[in-house]
């Protein structure tokens, strides 16, 4: 089933290339053709359910961000993965599928929230998991696992408690040990480090 789909799809849309995949059929599609392809997938090829939207940050490679879409056909019971590179590394954008698949609405909000990809044409592109005023996109590779100190969203609470969001002491593994001295003193302790090895902890 998947093979015939592949032949039909690549014949009709000559910009599609096959993508390396360890399981389902996977295709690369340029960002500006995505809407056309997904409309055809839904209406003509029976891939009627958009099960997942996400993105991968390739760090130093360019193109840096790749949007990943997983489709499931409720009739053929086949999965299909569509990957689309964001043309711009600094301000990654992709066309929004929210008009075609209502399911894309929240998925794209999540990807925008965590990965910082702008979905053009999205009806309501706001953060969904982090709070609205949060300044970072935590799933990007440069974002440290331990987090970055950020003012609490509620000013009154922050003022009353004098607290910010404290970073977790987890960078580079959760424990640290000084290595010299008697064993009782070199017992591994939770690291009190909020930044990774390459980056200094910024002063407030």
């Amino acid at each position: 089933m998947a093979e015939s789909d592949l032949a039909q799809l690549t014949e009709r849309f000559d910009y599609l290339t096959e993508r390396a995949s360890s399981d389902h059929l996977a295709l690369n599609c340029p960002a500006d053709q995505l809407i056309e392809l997904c409309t055809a997938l839904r209406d003509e090829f029976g891939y009627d359910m958009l099960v997942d939207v996400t993105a991968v940050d390739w760090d130093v490679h360019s193109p840096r961000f790749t949007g990943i879409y997983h489709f499931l056909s409720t009739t053929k019971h086949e999965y299909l993965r569509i990957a689309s590179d964001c043309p711009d590394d600094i301000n990654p954008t992709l066309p929004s599928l929210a008009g075609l698949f209502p399911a894309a609405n929240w998925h794209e909000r999540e990807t925008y929230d965590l990965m910082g990809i702008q979905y053009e044409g999205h009806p309501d592109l706001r953060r969904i998991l982090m709070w609205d005023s949060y300044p970072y996109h935590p799933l990007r590779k440069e974002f440290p696992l331990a987090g970055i100190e950020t003012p609490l969203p509620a000013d009154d609470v922050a003022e009353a408690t004098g607290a910010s969001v404290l970073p977790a002491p987890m960078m580079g593994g959760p424990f640290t040990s000084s290595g010299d001295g008697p064993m009782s003193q070199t017992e591994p302790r939770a690291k009190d480090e909020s930044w990774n090895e390459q980056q200094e902890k910024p002063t407030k």
Partner: protein
Amino acid sequence: MATTKEISIGDVGSRAGEFETELQGDTMALNVGPSHPTTHGVLRLMMELDGDVVKKCEPVLGYLHRGDEKIAESMTYNQFVPYTDRLDYLAPLANNVAYAMAVEKLANLEVPERCQAIRVLCCELARISSHLLGVGVYGMDAGAWTVFMFTFTEREKLYTLFEELTGARFTTSYTRIGGVARDIPDGWLGRVLEFCKGVLPVLDQVDKLLTRNRIFMDRTVGIGAISKEDAIAYGMTGPNLRACGVDLDLRKDKPYLGYEKYDFDVPIGVNGDCYDRYLMRAEEIRQSVRIIRQCIDQLPEGSYYAEDAKKIFAPQKAKVLTSMEELIQNFMIVTEGPQVPAGEVYFEAENPKGALGFFVVSKGGGVPYRLKIRGPSFCNLSILDKLIPGHYLTDITVILGSLDFVMGECDR
């Protein structure tokens, strides 16, 4: 001290008439949650009410966001197993299995038949446990307290079985990449069968209490109906999707773990309303019992982990302590993680709440480069802003109960 205030009502009708324009112009903003018994966790709904009718509903998520996907990028595949417990924390065993399956698919590893059967047992017991709670609290949401007491008692028995199998009642962390943590304890299968025998009469009780209960039916039939097309378009999965009449069960349609060997039926709803969603779960418990009985009946002998996968599954402790080669193997797996080739996979398993998907990108080695978790509750809830408007405020409780979501996997 309580103060009382006397309000003169007078002729309500004519007074309302006087203020008619004023009254009609008013809508009320109502906030439910994030800490509210109706929302089963930390879902928050911002609603606009016109009298008793909801005009607009905006779900707010993220109160339980822990950044699981970020955490996964910095630990080995096995270390992430405990985090999967905390996705759908009402069915941790099923999450463990789904996650392990995704990584094994990337490693192109087939686990032995006995291991597969044990995992099927885990999944189905988790399904029963999750649905028992789902039906119970749903009944409670609709005002039927007794059902909850019945189902919760049964679920408690299940947790005792989980404890025997995994060592923990709640956060089981039972699977490893390439197998399960330990084999089935002696006599456990008999106790599972005993449980299966006991749970069916309880289901009949629940059936008597709810299925033809006038109050329950009045509150659920025709409420929160979702059309087939909407359910697919919003990416709903699991019992919620099947209640709408869509025949999609990954256990049947994309069989994994040898589900094709078992004889079971997939209940399909008609109207997609709250009542159908209850019927789905009640029937799925019965079907799970069927699967479990067949599974125990034909449980194959053999190993509970993939013995050939020396770079993936850590060797037995006795061997680690006596043999040099196994010691090195164990050391490598513990420090560097199970060695998995580079590639991309997406695997979905039919979990109690719907299709739990894992998208794993690996560049080789023991740590995922990117791990995306597709929580079924996240997708099931995304229909709320379309589904809820037009319903009465009191229906919200029933609709949320019928969707049976868990915020742990929604916010991840």
